[in-house]
């Protein structure tokens, strides 16, 4: 097709002419309208729908402050700790930039956890939004990697020993483990080589992937359309123009809505930065104000709070607990055989995997340390399975049986308790509690195909529930 440029009247404003010139060569207006300007979002969004755009906002904060920090930071084991203190004390306003970055990391996780909780409540991962969820899940993995790699950079005691423990987790993998952790560290101990590569991952490799995933997450979302608190498809009811009757264009409606959310967020964010940047040792751990010492482990080491639920699951996996896990897997395989409609091949595959795991957990086969790592990984990876584990006939918790809310709340409490125990020193009582919570955590997901379909569901409305205000 020949190139045709739309002709504007000679007296059209220069800005229109410029835009027309661009639009003929690059779909700028189309992109804007598809992705935001003319993107029809359900009009019944509530409080829980602010966290997507807030996450985007915090991502921008992290990138901007990160770029500035890299200008002053030195990724060198001999200089790193001092360069962070230099940023804090001597770079004009450096302390602000650094506190924005460190508080931003915690804020990012708070927002993302709430964002995921919203998806869990309203079934936002259900068909046709499986890819939206998977891209989001991959973003979550990237965030965890960002946080982990970034945490080594200040080269404090917690940076050092936290990295030491996590890298050694890979050492638990049979056969290749020790070589793998050596390969990750690039030295026999966490050292300058490790710091340099973690710096590279933190400032370029992971952010590149992260930005691509954010774009994919948004494109997929804007393709299928947003879910809403009623969990119904607004695209099923269209007006004469072909727009959803219950939808409103994101701009200006959600632009102003989200700007309000950003304002509230900034009030809270500033309060933390200016009054409690360390947040009682949760956002910045006290031991990290000591330079890394490869000869001395701090008396109490714990990961930063956003990793602790998963870290608790790792710690809960002792050799005694493996018997519970074995029994649980055996019961689960029996359940799959008796109470599922899966094909015979799938059932056999599940049984074979279950049997292999049970054998692997025998005392003389693979040590508890390895299974701790496996459960730790599985507790994160299982989130990706949600679109296929949830078999509820309705999406939103609003129209599900009331006891489903109880299940969701019990799960949330177990997750929070795991998080709390992860920052506490190990003790027999805490260990038992974290084992109970670990069982609850996995049961929530693995039994979901059954419990999510049970009970009396309420009728789902045709149109969204909306009260004009």
């Amino acid at each position, binding site marked *: 097709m020949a190139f045709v440029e739309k002709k504007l009247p000679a007296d059209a404003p220069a800005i229109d002419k410029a835009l027309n010139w661009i639009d003929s060569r690059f779909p700028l207006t189309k992109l804007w309208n598809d992705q935001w300007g003319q993107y029809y979002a359900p009009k019944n969004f509530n409080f829980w729908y602010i966290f997507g755009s807030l996450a985007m906002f915090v991502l921008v904060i992290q990138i901007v402050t990160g770029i500035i920090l890299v200008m002053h930071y030195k990724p060198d084991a001999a200089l790193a700790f001092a360069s962070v203190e230099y940023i804090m004390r001597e770079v004009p306003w450096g302390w602000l930039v650094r506190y924005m970055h460190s508080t931003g990391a915690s804020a990012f996780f708070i927002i993302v956890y709430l964002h995921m909780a919203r998806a869990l409540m309203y079934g936002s991962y259900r068909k046709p939004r499986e890819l939206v969820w998977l891209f989001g899940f991959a973003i979550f993995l990237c965030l965890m990697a960002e946080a982990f790699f970034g945490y080594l950079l200040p080269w404090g005691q917690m940076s050092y*020993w936290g990295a*030491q*423990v996590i*890298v*050694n*987790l890979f*050492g638990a993998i049979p056969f290749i483990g*020790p070589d793998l952790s*050596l*390969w*990750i*560290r*690039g*030295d*026999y*101990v966490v*050292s300058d*080589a490790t710091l340099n*590569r973690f710096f590279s991952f933190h400032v370029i490799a992971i952010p590149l992937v992260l930005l691509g995933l954010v774009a994919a997450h948004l494109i997929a979302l804007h393709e299928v359309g947003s879910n809403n608190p009623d969990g119904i498809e607004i695209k099923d009811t269209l007006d004469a123009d072909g727009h959803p009757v219950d939808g409103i264009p994101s701009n200006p409606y959600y632009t102003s809505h989200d700007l309000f959310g950003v304002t509230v967020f900034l009030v809270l964010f500033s309060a933390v930065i200016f009054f409690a940047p360390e947040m009682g040792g949760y956002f910045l751990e006290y031991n990290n104000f000591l330079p890394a010492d*490869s*000869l*001395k*482990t*701090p*008396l*109490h*080491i714990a990961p930063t709070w956003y990793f602790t639920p998963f870290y608790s699951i790792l*710690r809960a996996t*002792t*050799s*005694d607990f493996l018997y519970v896990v074995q029994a649980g897997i055996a019961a689960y395989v029996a359940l799959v055989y008796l109470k599922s409609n899966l094909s015979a091949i799938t059932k056999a595959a599940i049984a074979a995997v279950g049997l292999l795991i049970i054998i692997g957990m025998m005392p003389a086969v693979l*040590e*508890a*340390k390895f299974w701790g790592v496996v459960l730790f990984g599985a507790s994160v990876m299982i989130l990706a399975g949600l679109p296929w584990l949830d078999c509820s006939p309705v999406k939103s918790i609003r129209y599900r049986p009331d006891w489903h809310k109880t299940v969701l709340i019990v799960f949330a409490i177990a997750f929070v308790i795991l998080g709390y125990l992860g920052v506490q*020193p*190990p*003790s027999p009582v805490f260990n038992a509690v974290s084992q109970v919570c670990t069982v609850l955590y996995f049961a929530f997901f693995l039994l979901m195909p059954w419990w999510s379909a049970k009970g009396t569901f309420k009728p789902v409305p045709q149109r969204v529930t909306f009260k004009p205000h």
Partner: protein
Amino acid sequence: MSNRSDKNQVGQQVGQQVDSGRRGLLVATCAMGGVAGLATTGAFVSTFQPSDRAKAAGAPVEVDISTLTPGQMTVAEWRGKPVWILKRTPEMMASLNVTQGEVADPDSLKPYTMPLPDYCEKQSRSRKDHKDVLIAIGICSHLGCSPSSKFTPGPQPSLPDNWVGGFLCPCHGSTFDLSGRVFKNKPAPENLDVPRFMFLSDTKIVIGEDEKGQA
């Protein structure tokens, strides 16, 4: 425009009849490119391995223990890791008889990263001529934290009431006796490593080297 339709015709012809010579060339080119790509990836992956400098940094270290009194411990650095040099008192040595039945691997049959040197006794895990001096790498075999010394016997937080002295790993609560042997039912699967070492004199030791050469 005519050019474009020519191309379409060529495309149709290819769809009907594959030029096997050119297809073979195409496959061979892709295979060559793939090999080159894989080889380059291999080089990229290899850059993550310890550098020659990191490998060379593992030279033996000499430690002077002339000022070490019985019951006292000093820490030396070897290959970036803490190496404990503990001069044990007769009471400490006696505690090893108590822990003999409580440790998971009393004879150190299952090594962590290096086997117990054959000149070391099984219980004291030290050389026969200097039985009281324990040399061990202070890195827990669980996840690599450095255990802290808990030499005072008796009940205390995080430790059993019949504690006779040893080491406690702060990360996940593994306990070790005064020979660095891990107690039963602890997260750490193996005893602490004992590096190869030798006495140059009664007060001078070298870590990472023995009569047979460097570790």
